């Protein structure tokens, strides 16, 4: 077994030798894959990058979310995951709010779209998000598209090359969430949509960058 091999649940990979495991499990020294995915072996870690599955929140991930419910002390946010995230007032607003007088929907209302950061995930997967992040913001207008979360890295490309290419050529504003939700606004929105859909469908093929460049020229 080597890096880039496809592995399946239960497939033996190699000896652990003290390394970290990601999407793998060990029995004694023996390491097996937990999921269907692509193997990545390094000196520090044996990791499997899943080829399918739901978005499961991790601290530090930046996600696109949609306000789902307004509560007394914060907001419930749909983050395209089995788990809803909570955005508490303290993580959303700088100013003091008198909760007796102010309805929180004044700041974020049901259906509003935000780009936020996963700030806390407990063992039982209680999830909190925060707006206290450099690039967190409320996203006005635009439209959301949904892709399978594990294809997000393809859409972003190496060092953001792919998404920057699409943005500049289509003159759009795009926010890509790790959770597979992508917000697009302005410019040739439909073209950007088309490119991202193509990347999702053909994420596993080679020559993708070339193909997208061509689509953007045409």
């Amino acid at each position, binding site marked *: 077994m080597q890096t*880039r091999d*496809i592995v*399946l*649940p*239960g*497939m*033996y990979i190699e000896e652990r030798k003290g390394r970290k495991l990601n*999407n793998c*499990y060990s029995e004694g020294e023996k390491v*097996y894959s*937990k*999921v*269907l*995915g*692509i193997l990545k072996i390094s000196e520090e870690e044996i990791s499997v990058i*899943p*080829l*399918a*599955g*739901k978005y*499961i929140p991790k601290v530090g991930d930046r996600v696109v979310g949609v306000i789902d419910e307004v509560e007394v002390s914060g907001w419930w946010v749909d983050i395209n995951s*089995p*788990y*809803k995230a909570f955005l508490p007032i303290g993580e959303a607003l700088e100013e003091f709010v008198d909760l007796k007088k102010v309805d929180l929907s004044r700041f974020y209302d049901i259906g509003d779209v935000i780009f936020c950061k996963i700030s806390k995930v407990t*063992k*039982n*997967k209680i999830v909190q998000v925060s707006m206290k992040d450099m690039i967190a913001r409320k996203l006005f207008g635009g439209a959301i598209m949904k892709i399978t979360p*594990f294809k997000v890295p393809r859409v972003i490309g190496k060092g953001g090359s792919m998404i920057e290419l699409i943005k500049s050529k289509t003159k759009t504003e795009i926010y890509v969430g790790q959770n597979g939700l992508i917000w697009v606004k302005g410019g040739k929105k439909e073209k950007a949509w088309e490119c991202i859909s193509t990347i999702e469908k053909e994420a*596993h*093929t*080679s*020559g*993708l960058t070339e193909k997208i460049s061509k689509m953007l020229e045409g």
Partner: protein
Amino acid sequence: MGKKTNIQLMVDGRRIDGRLPEQLREIEMKIGEIENADGSARVRFGNTEALVAVYGPRSLFPKFLQESDMAILRVVYSMAPFSVDERKNPAPDRRSIEISKVTKDALSGAVFLEEFPRTVIDVYEYIIQADGSTRVTAINAASLALASAGIPMKDLVAACSVGKIGDVLIVDLCGKEDNYSESDMAVAMMPSKGLITLLQMDGRLTKEEVLQLLKKAEENCKKIYEMQKKALLEKFKVVGED
């Protein structure tokens, strides 16, 4: 199961459908035919065919059903009304309810449920045509559907049926053998670990015969396991870029 009959189940070393005692039927495995599902698979053993869809992990309501430290797995096994000789009432019967329950046990042991607290993973099994061994065929498909949904597991689960006609051990029972053989056994296991996750047997067997049948079942689960792996690898083969 063990009904009296005049039907000759074995003639000149051949079974009622012409197979040799230890011969599996023609097996077909297809992954991902249900677009809406998070994972799906169709598996056919001869004229027994199961379609399985997996949804989840997803949030579970009402809340009191949730387990705070793990996901729950639910299984519904059902048969198409037209899958059998005489139309089957589509409402769940006692047999289907029992099969759903033992299948849930057979799959739960293989899934890392602790990774998804408070959620549910739903496995829906639908038998399109039934000619014996439906529960094991469905388990083979369910295991493929779970893997293709990205659900973490210790191993794939492979399953098969074994039985006995006279003194002859047979594998992969067809409908008539299911009904009239003296003894039959359904086995599911995690083949690379040698761990049995489902075991149901009825008939009249000595302890030694039970163990012989189990070994046959293990051998054949391993064969089926290889086919499952092949089906998954083929579906998800990735051409490297750059």
